[in-house]
């Protein structure tokens, strides 16, 4: 309300005033203050867990803030639902493209979906009428989409256009685009950028959330960087990519706090691998006694590569060798039987059994060790759970507590810790540090270091800082290819970020990288 003295037309469109958000004891946002002005495109950046998604959820009415005010054109507003947000002129196109469309309906039906929820109006809605309304919408927005095609038959970018069209129909003053290019190819991204330019020309303010520096530089008038739930810097065009990167990553570790190792014999290797049928082929190998950090932007192909190692995806091409023997896992249990374990990326969807005790989570992967002729030996199981809890400093009300009672970091310590009790050939961790605090991160990193003495450990992360922090060797993936393979002691997180985001794949080869790394 301090802006009340300013003339009305110079009021910012949206102003966040000391927004805080707590999840239990975890602080996601610690007082965020910034504004979006009329008609501007503002870039919002930050590493995983910096608070971007939380901020977007608050602004789109999906979650209430714990404290602070949202002022829309100077007036404090409560955004309790997406409808409230829409009434304030705020519309969001979410990162997951398929959240914005309804499968099983045609493009035309998707486009008029929002008209159906309007009270009153003509309830008679034969398909001809739906089609005419949809055609009018496309005409007005100058979009070109096939009306009668089921939406699931469109490409990712086509479905995104449907989502954007649905958003624009609501005549937003502020459009939030959340990681819009994360699942698009370069050509598809180009189409999106033209769309954004057209929206800018219409005077729509855009909050553009992205990891991709090149997108931000190209589209945004200003940029705001979040780190640890706070705004750490504001940048004006021309945007300085280097300054922004430094700001995103914070104090970059000057040197790894450990001796970088080179590993011993090769455990797992692949020749002529691909992450998609028409992608480039590459070779890769992992050795006992080292931690390899696999990094790259979202959509670079990291997950697709790892899934081939642990049997969640059939080998696309080439061949794998495990301990010198040809290896092609049928499925995950088969890979596990061969000594390849993995900690999945999405804790809630891929690791957690809802409502089950910590003990159950600790023991589930090695029930044979706690049972005789199939009968569970409860005391041994509990002893194991207690050991993981104490070794990994899992803060919990007790081993019988349901896993939901723990913070994300403590859940992760338990879920990683349970795997490290057994020796394996390869241990894969997909985004193990996502959304967890620095304390949990260091406990896990330290344990991995010890565990990797006899195991090839692969840590996958899109955060270059994390990779440098834990890995002996770093692989960078970009556009489905490994573009850099280097000892972590010879590269900085900033340089990694540059390689990850470099636009055309020809600009940064491993060779050019070596010259880059000489200061």
């Amino acid at each position, binding site marked *: 309300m301090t802006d009340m003295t300013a003339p009305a037309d110079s009021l910012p469109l949206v102003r966040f005033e000391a927004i805080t958000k707590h999840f239990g*004891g975890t602080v996601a946002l610690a007082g965020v203050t910034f504004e979006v002005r009329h008609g501007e495109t503002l870039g919002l950046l930050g590493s995983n867990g910096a608070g971007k998604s939380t901020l977007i959820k608050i602004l789109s009415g999906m979650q209430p803030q714990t404290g602070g005010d949202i002022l829309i054109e100077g007036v404090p507003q409560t955004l309790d639902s997406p409808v409230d947000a829409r009434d304030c002129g705020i519309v969001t196109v979410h990162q997951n493209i398929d959240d914005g469309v309804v499968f099983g309906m045609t493009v035309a039906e998707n486009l008029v979906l929002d008209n159906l929820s309007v009270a009153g109006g003509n309830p008679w809605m034969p398909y001809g009428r739906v089609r005419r309304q949809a055609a009018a919408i496309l005409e007005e927005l100058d979009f070109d989409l096939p009306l009668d095609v089921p939406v699931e038959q469109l490409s990712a970018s086509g479905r995104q256009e449907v989502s954007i069209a649905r958003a624009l129909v609501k005549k937003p003053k502020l459009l939030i685009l959340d990681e819009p290019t994360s699942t698009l190819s370069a050509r598809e991204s180009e189409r999106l950028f033209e769309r954004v330019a057209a929206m800018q020309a219409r005077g729509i303010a855009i909050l553009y959330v992205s990891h991709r520096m090149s997108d931000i530089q190209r589209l945004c008038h200003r940029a705001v960087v979040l780190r640890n739930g706070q705004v750490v810097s504001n940048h004006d065009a021309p945007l300085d990519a280097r300054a922004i990167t430094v700001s995103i990553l914070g104090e970059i570790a000057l040197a790894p706090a450990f001796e970088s190792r080179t590993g011993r014999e090769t455990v797992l290797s692949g020749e002529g691998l691909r992450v998609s049928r028409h992608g480039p082929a590459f070779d890769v190998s992992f050795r006992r006694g080292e931690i390899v950090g696999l990094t790259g932007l979202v959509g670079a192909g990291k997950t697709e590569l790892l899934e081939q190692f642990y049997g969640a995806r059939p080998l696309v091409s080439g061949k794998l060798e495990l301990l010198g023997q040809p290896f092609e896992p049928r*499925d995950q249990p088969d890979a596990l039987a061969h000594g390849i374990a993995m900690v999945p990326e999405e804790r809630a969807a*891929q690791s957690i*059994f*809802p409502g089950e005790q910590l003990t159950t989570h600790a023991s589930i992967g090695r*029930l044979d060790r706690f049972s005789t002729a199939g009968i*569970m030996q409860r005391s041994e199981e509990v002893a194991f759970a207690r050991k993981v809890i104490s070794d990994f400093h899992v803060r919990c009300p007790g081993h019988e*507590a349901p896993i939901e009672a723990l*913070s994300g970091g403590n859940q992760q310590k338990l879920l990683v810790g349970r795997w490290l009790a057994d020796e394996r050939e390869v241990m894969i961790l997909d985004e193990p540090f996502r959304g967890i605090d620095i304390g949990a991160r260091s406990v896990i990193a330290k344990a991995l270091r010890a565990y990797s003495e006899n195991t090839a450990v692969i840590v996958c992360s899109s955060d270059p800082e994390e990779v440098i922090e834990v890995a002996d060797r770093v692989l960078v993936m970009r556009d489905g290819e490994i573009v850099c393979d280097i000892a972590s002691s010879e590269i900085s997180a900033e340089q990694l970020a540059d390689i990850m985001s470099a636009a055309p794949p020809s600009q940064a080869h491993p060779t050019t990288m070596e010259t880059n790394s000489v200061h």
Partner: protein
Amino acid sequence: MSTDIQSSPAERATPYSKDAITHFIYRYGLLVVLALMIVVFSIAHPFFGTFANAMFILQASAIVAVVGLGCTISMTVGGFDLAVGATMSLVVMVAAGAMVIYGFSGPVAILLGLAAGLLAGLLNAMLIVYARIPDLVATLAAQFLVSGTTLLAVNGQSISEGMSLGTTSATGTFAPIFKWLGSGYVFGVHSSVIVAGLVFLAVFALLNLTKWGRIFYAIGGNPVAAAAVGIPVRRYRIIAYLLSGLLSAVAGLLLVARSNRGDVSVGDAYLLQAVSAALVGYAVLGANRANAFGTLIGAVFVATLINGLTMFNFPYYAQTFVQGLLLGVALLMSYTLGPKSKR
């Protein structure tokens, strides 16, 4: 690292620190109501509280309990078996036909019946695990297929001793073991109650004491996470449906022994009773998931209620309504009073 575990919302949402009264109702509500019901009926009617009547109630719930325990197993893996009633009918006809028409001995008839149940379970498992049809619709299709097979095999006719077979009449009779299953007693306890008790102990042990039980519940909780820790999810889902078919067969054998004849579709009515026993069981002791003890209580609860109401000349056609009421209240307890669904 300043996370205060004790006050996190996730912790508050669990039954451990819920408002005490809600928590008590959630855990013990159904058991308390059952106990109260027994006390009230016993005071109000002199016969209700007798040993004979207690046995009568248990006998009435035995078959439902056995089928319900089969449903419970399929529910633990996140499935749902709609074919249990049709499987019972099939087993009834197989066992009756084996003895009456083909003159097989009792043990052979039992083995054939159990095999028929396993086959029906296998059909479910194939549709669900290999054809990847969702459980509910797959078992719906299996229900019709199994029922239809039964009807075709016996030309839609019932099987009874001395039935006409075209020019001759059937010479086979029900074997002694079936007579015992239908009307035998051990220390005053009806044989079907003993069988149901043994089935209960076996299923309880399986689900609560063995690693296989852990695996079943893990698959039901999160199949993706189960595969990630190396559990062969498909194999265990097949096993769950086979066990469900096997227990339907046991129930079918009890049923045919009770009537000493084979009527087509006689088992169909047990589907809904068994499913509701298992669902009522969710609310017992705050389990909030399918569990053996809960299913047993669910089956006994319904039988007790109907027994008591009948004693007070409550019209038989009101029974369905009373069952619906009970199921509604039990579901209310597990879904509304219980911890919010985390799925």
